[in-house]
């Protein structure tokens, strides 16, 4: 029993509730938000440290023993993702102070961001499949509010579609849990894994796997199910985009990773083959989107889809090395996507447009912004020694070793095209003749640059310190590769 595990969920929750009382006092809201986010970073760091040294930490909520009550489980992967989430949330909050606007700040923007963090951290931490659904809903509810906050026409229109898609996928989630419950009669994820291995290899388990793949795929934006993402993520302002792009799809990816390594690892013939094909198609369609648009928001949004494909390809190969690569890349991608969204937010704040054809020559006046963007772009594409490299290399190598040549080749090619799509923004937007923009002097560029610069610095450090973080990441992948570790820690058999 370890109560530390609840704090990354509890602190944002309490903060969110307390902030409701200070709805009209923006300064108090900002201070409380920043301090609370900072505390969450410290707590989740302590938690990750504890997990690294003492192994998987669990907590049985309200003291009901493991298979009967809800258990929160923090293994290395969960605690690392919680840590990354809290760092990104802090960065997005700092960025919001100068960019989100008073109207939103007075209309419960900060409480809702904290509730979003509750949902995301909860989804990463929980060890109960139905509780996962509940945390998904907490996260989605907050995302609905964040998406619609401001109430412009495009936001209203896009949030209707977003909510409709997510309501349907939530109903599918409930249906999938109902089928799962009828097969195994339990909801605890470790216990489900045990019961599924006892149940043997029947058709219904494959059906369940595909159902869960559809449910989480809708949230994580895999190949045929990503159709809603480019439109919906286009609508909100930059910090909200950063939170969505860095966190929401990754929760879907995490859930696929968790279920496909913990539940459905017995018969990998059909399900993981399917996952692999979908992952490759996801990469291809994401790359096509990233190359097709001349809108900087769209380019980065399609790059989310590419990253989802790369990570899931790593998961579908299912060797220890590919899983290590997937975890490496997952954390890298959360960090760098947040940085990129915040950076293009600055570009939009300066120029007032996201159309690449109307932007040029920014580097003259904003060298800091330009070079941060350049480094972030290189890191995204996985140029050594930056952060994307190690993960991608491990995924590709594992792909070649297991003779999945097409997939590994597609991942390799995608890095090249991702680099091209990002450099297009850099060349088009930062080079060329400088132009005058209407709102140029109003944008508080220096303040806004702090958060993405810190995140980009993390990306550089994460890349340079690959050797140092490798044992931590491989510990996370080890739990994924050997579900027995997870099961044993939860059920204490």
């Amino acid at each position, binding site marked *: 029993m370890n109560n530390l595990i609840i704090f990354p969920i509890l602190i944002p929750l309490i903060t969110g509730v307390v902030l409701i009382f200070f709805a009209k006092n923006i300064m108090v809201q900002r201070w409380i938000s920043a301090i609370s986010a900072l505390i969450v970073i410290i707590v989740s760091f302590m938690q990750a440290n504890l997990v690294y040294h003492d192994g998987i930490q669990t907590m049985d909520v309200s003291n009901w023993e493991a298979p009967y009550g809800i258990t929160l489980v923090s293994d290395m992967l969960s605690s690392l993702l919680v840590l990354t989430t809290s760092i990104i949330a802090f960065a997005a909050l700092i960025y919001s102070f100068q960019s989100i606007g008073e109207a939103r700040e007075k209309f419960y923007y900060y409480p809702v961001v904290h509730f979003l963090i509750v949902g995301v951290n909860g989804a990463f931490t929980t060890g109960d499949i*139905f509780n996962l*659904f*509940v945390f998904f*809903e907490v996260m*989605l*509810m907050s995302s*609905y509010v964040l998406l*619609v906050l401001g*109430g*412009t*026409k*495009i936001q*209203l*229109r896009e*949030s*209707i579609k977003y*909510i*409709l898609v997510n*309501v*349907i996928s*939530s*109903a*599918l989630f*409930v*249906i999938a*849990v*109902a*089928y799962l*419950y*009828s097969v195994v009669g339990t*909801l605890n994820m470790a216990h489900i894994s045990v019961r599924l291995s006892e149940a043997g290899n029947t058709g219904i388990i494959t059906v369940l796997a595909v159902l869960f793949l559809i449910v989480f795929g809708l949230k994580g934006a895999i190949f045929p199910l990503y159709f809603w993402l*480019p*439109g919906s993520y*286009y609508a909100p302002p930059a910090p909200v985009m950063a939170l969505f792009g860095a966190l929401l799809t990754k929760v879907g990816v995490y859930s696929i990773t968790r279920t496909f390594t913990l539940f459905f690892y017995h018969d990998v013939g059909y399900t993981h083959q399917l996952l692999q094909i979908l992952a490759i198609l996801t990469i291809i369609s994401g790359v096509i989107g990233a190359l097709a648009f001349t*809108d900087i*928001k*769209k380019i980065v949004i399609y790059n989310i889809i590419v990253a989802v494909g790369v990570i899931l390809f790593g998961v579908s190969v299912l060797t220890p090395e590919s899983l290590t690569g997937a975890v490496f890349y997952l954390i890298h991608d959360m960090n760098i996507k947040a940085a990129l969204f915040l950076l293009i937010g600055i570009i939009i704040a300066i120029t007032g447009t996201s159309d690449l054809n109307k932007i040029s020559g920014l580097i003259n006046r904003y060298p800091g912004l330009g070079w941060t963007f350049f480094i972030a772009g290189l890191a995204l594409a996985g140029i050594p020694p930056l952060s994307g490299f190690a993960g991608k290399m491990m995924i590709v190598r594992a792909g070649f070793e297991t003779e999945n040549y097409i997939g590994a080749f597609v991942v390799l090619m995608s890095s090249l095209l991702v680099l091209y799509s990002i450099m297009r923004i850099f060349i088009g937007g930062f080079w060329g003749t400088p132009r005058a923009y209407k709102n140029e002097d109003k944008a508080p560029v220096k303040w806004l640059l702090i958060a993405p610069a810190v995140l980009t610095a993390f990306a550089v450090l994460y890349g340079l310190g690959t050797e140092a973080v490798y044992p931590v990441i491989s510990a996370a992948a080890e739990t994924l590769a050997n579900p027995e570790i997870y099961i044993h820690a939860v059920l204490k058999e």
Partner: protein
Amino acid sequence: MEILMAFLIGILFMAATYLMLSKSLLRIIIGTGLLSHGAHLLILTMGGLKRGAPPLLGEHAATYVDPLPQALILTAIVISFGVTSFFLVLAYRAYQELGTDNMDRLRGKEGHE
């Protein structure tokens, strides 16, 4: 009994799909409501339909009822209640702002106001 429930759930899903494919936003919302009703009934059925005592110590009954599906349904109902009401308010606001509840006219051009 399970067969009957299966038919009922099927009919609910069918009606939900039909409604969600229509153009009017209000019908779509009612469709999502029916979809979640179907899903809730599915949990109840999948948990096993039987009569029995509440699963408490000291009841000394021959059969007990599984309390878990009921707890799950309650949670799911509360969540779908919240989402549906949010969706209704949003639809109303969108109708005021955009002047239409026809999904065809709500489509808009990609990435434009």
